[in-house]
């Protein structure tokens, strides 16, 4: 499985549709404080099935919808799309690209679509935990988390091991 591209639209500070290519090797994300780098990391987590608003620094899931700025009104919809390249189970054949997207509407809630068909959050989380890349697995280290890994209690750390097993 490969993850090839990510698209954010109305997600946190990314009001306008923004695409980022996930190519081979090491890709760096740079910029001043508060410009949106961690928001991109969270968009990835979110589309991969993150179920906790607190895990995205919010108090409710709707906090991910663009809340406006001094120059723009807030939005009602946020959407993130991730392109997955197979082979990937029966989701995608070798070299085939499929779209996974998550969309949230204020006052309505969020929904996932895979290859155009609606799927449950559980299905998305399972899809990624098989490859050990999921919203909460060892593969996304959020800001401030690397030190916490060492300070955290032993049983929490073992759960990381379980998710990898």
């Amino acid at each position, binding site marked *: 499985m490969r*993850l090839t591209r990510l698209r954010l639209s109305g997600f946190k500070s990314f009001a306008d549709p923004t695409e980022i290519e*996930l190519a081979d090797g090491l*890709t760096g994300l740079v910029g001043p404080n508060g410009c949106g780098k961690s928001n991109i990391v969270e968009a990835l987590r979110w589309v991969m099935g993150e179920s906790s608003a607190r895990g995205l620094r919010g108090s409710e899931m709707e906090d991910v919808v663009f809340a406006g700025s001094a120059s723009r009104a807030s939005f009602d919809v946020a959407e993130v799309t991730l392109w997955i390249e197979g082979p990937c189970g029966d989701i995608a054949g070798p070299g085939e690209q499929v779209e996974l997207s998550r969309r949230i509407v204020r006052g309505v809630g969020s929904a996932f679509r895979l290859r155009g068909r609606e799927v449950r959050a559980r299905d998305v989380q399972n899809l990624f935990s098989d490859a050990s890349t999921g919203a909460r697995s060892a*593969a*996304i280290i959020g800001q401030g988390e690397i030190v916490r890994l060492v300070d955290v209690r032993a049983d929490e750390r073992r759960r990381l091991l379980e998710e*990898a097993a």
Partner: protein
Amino acid sequence: GRERLRSVFVEVDRHFRALFAQLFGGGRAELRLTEPEDPFAAGLELVAMPPGKTLQHVSLLSGGEKSLAGLALVFAFFLARPSPLCVLDEVDAALDDANVERFLDVMEEVARTTQTRFLVVSHHPLTMARMDRLYGVTMLEKGVSRLVSVSLERALELRATA
């Protein structure tokens, strides 16, 4: 179930020891299950001794040392169970220049070995310099983020803007 968890544990521990020594330029460390007989009920403990120092509780390590130990653990999971993507958000924030270089060497090696794609958020010039490509995130219109491909020179310029 139990056997598979135990074998993953053995594999992660093996990688962890090697990576720790690489990131610290020496010293030793290991992982321990608090209940070796029942891995599902056990805790995963870390024992770490930087080079030349005494073995003590990991809580006493410095901010930079904890970052390195955490990275050794993360990369150990990766080598045991490769993943298509690894995202690291400012994991080098507490590292001095010497340790940033060791972190970058190890990350490059893991990327080569496992064919994993890395997305690395950082303010550190040394880290930016090792990337295969750079995306700059900007807010020219306040409160609205945009993404743009940048060169290393431009990225370093962006760092210095007031």
